[in-house]
Every structure is written in structure tokens, then in C-alpha cells.
């Protein structure tokens, strides 16, 4: 499908563009990852407004997380999150066994060190979506073996 390839190629260029225009020392201290995450944040805020304009109010936090795992993920990545775990105290782990932006990269350990750059935008996407639904959070991602990856969401109670 044309739009999938378009988003994938655009996202790849986005990551390499941010890294190419990075100044001295910015790569090491994580500024590039932060920039990508902030871009994803703003996009996530906008996307969630569009996707929820016709849905009913959410019952609770868990309901919101399930929405992210099912409908939000399906609309953006054409598949659902494969596994959602929680400790019922504000920490959720979303596991995607075949993350769309990583399937072309490798099937295992090659290129593992570069994987985090390609997950930063999506972390921001989740954080932005949650923030417009009224939840402040911190989202991080980890990859042990491509293309499976885990997103960890820590809800901040104010």
C-alpha cells in the first residue's frame, strides 16, 4: 500500500536528517532522540484528537491503554499490539512482536545499536496521545531482538 511505504521512508529520512544536522556532542547526550520524541509527541496529540472524535468517554486508565493497543496502533501501524502487561500501579508494557518500522531492518541482532533511534518517534507518539487524553506519562522503548520491541509507559500521578 502506497501510504505505508510513504510513512516508512519519510520516517527513515526524518531520523537520518535529525542525526545529520546534529551539532557536536548532541548525538552522545541524547538530544537527537529527544528531538525525535518531541516530534512524535506533537503528532500523537493531533492524531488522538482525530481518532477519538466519535468514540465514547473512556472508563479508566486501563481502558485508555487498551484503546492505544488496539485502535490507535491499528490505525497507525495496521496491526494491534501483541501483548499488554501492567502492574496495576501505573506501569504498562506494550509488546509488539513485529514492529512495522523495524521489520525491514533485520531479524535478530544485526543493527541492534541503531534501533533506539527508530523507536523515539513512536515513543513520543504514545506520550502525545496519552497526554491529550489527560494522562501524563513517560514512555521508553527497548529492543532485544528485532523486529520485536517493548514500549514501557510510566504514568505520572500528579
Amino acid at each position, binding site marked *: 500500500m502506497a501510504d505505508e*511505504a510513504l510513512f*516508512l*521512508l519519510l520516517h*527513515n*529520512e526524518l*531520523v*537520518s536528517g535529525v542525526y545529520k544536522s546534529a551539532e557536536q556532542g548532541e548525538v552522545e547526550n541524547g538530544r537527537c532522540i529527544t528531538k525525535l520524541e518531541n516530534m512524535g509527541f506533537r503528532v500523537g496529540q493531533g492524531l488522538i484528537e482525530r481518532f477519538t472524535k466519535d468514540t465514547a468517554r473512556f472508563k479508566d486508565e486501563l481502558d485508555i491503554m487498551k484503546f492505544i493497543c488496539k485502535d490507535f496502533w491499528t490505525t497507525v501501524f495496521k496491526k494491534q499490539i501483541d501483548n499488554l502487561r501492567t502492574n496495576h500501579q501505573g506501569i504498562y508494557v506494550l509488546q509488539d512482536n513485529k514492529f512495522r518500522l523495524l521489520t*525491514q*531492518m*533485520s*531479524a*535478530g541482532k*544485526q*543493527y541492534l545499536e*541503531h534501533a533506539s533511534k*527508530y523507536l523515539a518517534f513512536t515513543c513520543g507518539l504514545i506520550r502525545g496521545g496519552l497526554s491529550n487524553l489527560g494522562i501524563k506519562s513517560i514512555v521508553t522503548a527497548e529492543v532485544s531482538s528485532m523486529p520485536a520491541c517493548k514500549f514501557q509507559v510510566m504514568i505520572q500521578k500528579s
Partner: protein
Amino acid sequence: MTVHNLYLFDRNGVCLHYSEWHRKKQAGIPKEEEFKLMYGMLFSIRSFVSKMSPLDMKDGFLAFQTSRYKLHYYETPTGIKVVMNTDLGVGPIRDVLHHIYSALYVELVVKNPLCPLGQAVQSELFRSRLDSYIRSLPFFSARAG
């Protein structure tokens, strides 16, 4: 019936990928020279075929065969050339070469941000998927025929 080896060239003659499955005799020259020789030969044959064709050309150069092997050729509009040597029992395999280009090269190399275009392909995923695809072809048999 079997596949001997496969070359993948880009528009500038850089050999992006080479793998072999059954090759009993080597060319006797270093690999770099072999790739240059192959690319130069293809370039010359293509222009020869289009000049000397007695009719209007449709697809151009497709394949050549000797008494022992057959070389199949497929070129895309972007200049990517897929060259496969098989034995004589194999018919036209344009769609196979097209699949190698579209489902393997485009999916796993072009869409991979860590594979710079114009250089030899380092991606392990590409290598392993190509290998299993070739082994799954109906005209590939594990014993050299």
C-alpha cells in the same frame, strides 16, 4: 536442475550482492575483477542487442546459454540488474528475477535506512531471505544436476 549463482548490480556497476550455491569452477580471477567483467559484458551485450535487432525491440537482452549453463538477465527502469546462472533445464524466469527485485531488494534494502544505496548490501536479513527464497524455487535442487 539447479541455480549456480546470482549477481545484483546497480546502475553504476557496483556489485550490490553476490551469492553462489553450486559452482564447481571458479573464474580464476579475483572477485572484484569478475564483477567488473560481468558488468562490462552485460553492458556491451545490451547495446549490441538493441543495435543489431532486425525488429523493434521489446524487452531487449533476456538470456544466453552455453552447452553447460544458462545466464538469465533482468533489468529494472532504475538500472538495478539481476543476473542468475542456472543449468540448462530452466525456462524463462523473468518473474522470479522480478520477485527478487521487488519483494527482496526493495523491501529489505531500499526500505532499510541503515543500508546506504550504492554500496554492497550488508543486511543479514536480505542475505538469509534471498537464500531461503532461492532454495524454495521449484527448479532448485540441493544436489547439483
